[in-house]
C-alpha cells in the first residue's frame, strides 16, 4: 500500500435520540493510501455514510457528535480543528460527491457560478481565471460544449450530467482525497458505467485517493483496490478487493456475497441473511452479527470481538476465523 493520505483511527460518532446518546459508529479504523480507492461497504444503517461525513466534519452537531478517535489528513489532525481551518481543507484538499446531485447542487445558481465559487475561495484568483478553470474541469468530465454550459442551471442538466458537474466541482481544486458517497446509486446503469469509467480515468491522470461509499458489490468489484465492510457501526473486515471476493473471512461478508442474485444459479433459492440489522440502541452483546450468523456459538455472544490483523494486510472481526472456511464469489 502507498503511504496513507487519510487515516481514521478508532472513530466514534454518537447521535442524541429518544433513546439517549446512541453510538452509530464505533471504533472504526481504516486508511486510504495515495492514489488508492478504498470501498466502504455496508447496508443501510451500517454507519458508512456517517463515517464518510465525519471525515469532512460534516455531521450535524447537535444532534451528532464525534465522541472519540482521530482523523488525519496527510498527518494533520482534523478532529477538533477550527471551522476556518476546516473550510480551507474542504473542497480543496478533500472534496466530496454525494448521491443526490439535485440536492447537492444549489438550484438557484448556475453550474458555472458554483464551480467558480470553489475555485475563487481556495485559489483566490480572478473571475476570468476561475471561469477558465471551470471550463477546464467540465471538459474533463466530458460535458459537451462546456463554455456555453457555464450559464446553465442544475435543473437543465440530466441526472448523469448533473453528477458529472458535481464531480467537476469536486475536482476543481485538484483534491488529494475524493470522498464519493453512493455517487452512482441514483443513476441508471448505462450512466453509472459512464461515471465509473470517468472516475477511473480521472484517478489514473491525477492520482487522487478515493473513499468510495457504496452498498453495491458490483461497483466495488469494478472500481476499488481495497474494501472495508461495515456492519452495525463497526468494520468487520478489510482486505484487497481480490482477497475479499475470493476468500471472505467474515460470515457477514460471505452472506453479502452469496446474496448477490447474479451469483446464484437460476431457479435456485436466493441466499438471504436471516433477520434484520440491529437498531443502534439495541446492539447485541458480543459480536454484533451473532443473531444472524450461521456459525455463531455461545462464546460469540459473550465477549466483544476485536478487529484482528491477519496475513496479507487483512483484518477481520470474528473469533472463529481460523476454523471457518467461507465461500467467496464464483
Amino acid at each position: 500500500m502507498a503511504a496513507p493520505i487519510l487515516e481514521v483511527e478508532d472513530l466514534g460518532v454518537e447521535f442524541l435520540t429518544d433513546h439517549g446518546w446512541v453510538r452509530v459508529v464505533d471504533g472504526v479504523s481504516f486508511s486510504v493510501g495515495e492514489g488508492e480507492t478504498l470501498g466502504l461497504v455496508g447496508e443501510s444503517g451500517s454507519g458508512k455514510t456517517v463515517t464518510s461525513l465525519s471525515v469532512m466534519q460534516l455531521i450535524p452537531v447537535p444532534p451528532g457528535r464525534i465522541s472519540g478517535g482521530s482523523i488525519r489528513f496527510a498527518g494533520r489532525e482534523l478532529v477538533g480543528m477550527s471551522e476556518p481551518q476546516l473550510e480551507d481543507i474542504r473542497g480543496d484538499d478533500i472534496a466530496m460527491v454525494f448521491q443526490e446531485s439535485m440536492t447537492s447542487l444549489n438550484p438557484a445558481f448556475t453550474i458555472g457560478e458554483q464551480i467558480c465559487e470553489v475555485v475563487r475561495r481556495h485559489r483566490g484568483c480572478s473571475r476570468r481565471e476561475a471561469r477558465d478553470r471551470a471550463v477546464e474541469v467540465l471538459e474533463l468530465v466530458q460535458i459537451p460544449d462546456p463554455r456555453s454550459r457555464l450559464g446553465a442551471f442544475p435543473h437543465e442538466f440530466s441526472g448523469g450530467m448533473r453528477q458529472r458537474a458535481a464531480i467537476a466541482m469536486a475536482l476543481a481544486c485538484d483534491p488529494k482525497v475524493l470522498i464519493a458517497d453512493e455517487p452512482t446509486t441514483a443513476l441508471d446503469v448505462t450512466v453509472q458505467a459512464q461515471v465509473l469509467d470517468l472516475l477511473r480515468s480521472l484517478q489514473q491522470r491525477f492520482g487522487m485517493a478515493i473513499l468510495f461509499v457504496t452498498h453495491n458489490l458490483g461497483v466495488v468489484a469494478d472500481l476499488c483496490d481495497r474494501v472495508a465492510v461495515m456492519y452495525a457501526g463497526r468494520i468487520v473486515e478489510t482486505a484487497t478487493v481480490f482477497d475479499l471476493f475470493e476468500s471472505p473471512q467474515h460470515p457477514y461478508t460471505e452472506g453479502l456475497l452469496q446474496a448477490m442474485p447474479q451469483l446464484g444459479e437460476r431457479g435456485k433459492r436466493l441466499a438471504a441473511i436471516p433477520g434484520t440489522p440491529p437498531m443502534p440502541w439495541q446492539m447485541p452483546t458480543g459480536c454484533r452479527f451473532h443473531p444472524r450468523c450461521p456459525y455463531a456459538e455461545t462464546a460469540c455472544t459473550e465477549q466483544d470481538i476485536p478487529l484482528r490483523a491477519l496475513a496479507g494486510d487483512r483484518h477481520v472481526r470474528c473469533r472463529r476465523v481460523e476454523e471457518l472456511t467461507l465461500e467467496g464469489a464464483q
Partner: protein
Amino acid sequence: MTAPLLSVRDLAVTFHLRGGLLRPTRHLKAVNGVSFDIAPGETLAVVGESGSGKSTMARAVMRLVEPSAGSIHLDGDDITALRGEPLRRIRPKLQMVFQDPYSSLDPSMIIADVVGEPLTVHGVATGADRDERVQALLEQVGLGRYHMNRYPYEFSGGQRQRIAIARAIALQPKLLVLDEAVSALDVSTQNQILNLLEDLRRELGIAYLFISHDLGVVEHIADRVAVTYLGRIVEEGPTERIFAKPAHPYTEALLSAVPIPNPRIQRSRQRIVLPGDVPSPLAPPPGCPFHTRCPHVMDVCKTVMPAHTPMAGGGSAACYLHDPQATEGGRRAS
C-alpha cells in the same frame, strides 16, 4: 401455449403537459405501441432505465392511467375501457405492490385493517372471519398474528413490503403487478422478499408483471423479459436467451453495464459504454429510439422504426441488424 392471462396489444399512453400563455401543450408519449402477453402463472419482467415507460405500462395495465390507444385483455375480458362498477368487479383478479413500502401503507391504520380492507371492500369476509383470514395471510408472508394490532411505523422496510404483499394477495389475484417492489430494500432483505414471491407463485399460481431496473434480480425471477427504451419494447424473449444472447444493441449495452460482483471477471470483460444520455421522451428521435446512442447505427435506423423480428431461441427484437434486407440496404447506404 395456453390462452394468455394478460394480453396487451399496441398499447400507448400519452400524457398532455399543459402549456402556459406562450407555451403550447406538449404531448409526452410515455408508452408507444407496446404488445406483450403473460400466461397464467408466468413471470414477465419489464426492464429499462428511468423514462423508459415501464412504470406507466404497469399503471396502464392496472387501469390507473388511461391508455390513449391499444387494448388490454385480462382473462379473456377487454378491460381497456372499463369504468365504475364493472372495473371494480375485475379488481380482485389484478393487484399491485408498489416500490416504496413507506408511502404505500396508510400510517394511521393497524395492520389487520391494512390487510383486511380489500376483503371488506369486496364483501369477501367481515368480523371474526376477516381477522382469521388476515392472520392466515400474515402467516403466509412470514409474519404472525401478534403483528395484527400494530401500526406500519413499527415495521422495517422488508416487513412492510411483506404486509403490502399480504394485502395484494388477499383477494387471490391471478396477476400481481410489482413495480420495483424490491428496489428500496437492502440485498439481504431483498432476497427474503424474492424467495417469498417465488413461494407464493408456486403455492397460488399467480402470474407476475415484474417491473425492475435491476437485471440481476430479473435474471433470477423472470421466465421472460421485455426490454424497454423510450416507451417501446425493443426486445423480448425467454430469460435465458436474453441474458445469453441479447439481440438488440441496447440490451447488449444494458447487460454489459451491470457490474459483475467478482473483480476478476468484471475487470477482464469487454464493456460497452454508451455515449450520451437517453433522449427526452418529449422529443424522441425519429426512427429507432436508440439510434442516437447505438454503436451499430445505419441510415435506415434514423427514419423508420424497425419491426420486431423473431429470434432463434425465442422472442423477438426490433432492430435492423436482424432484418437481412434492411442490413443489406443500410450497409450500402452508410
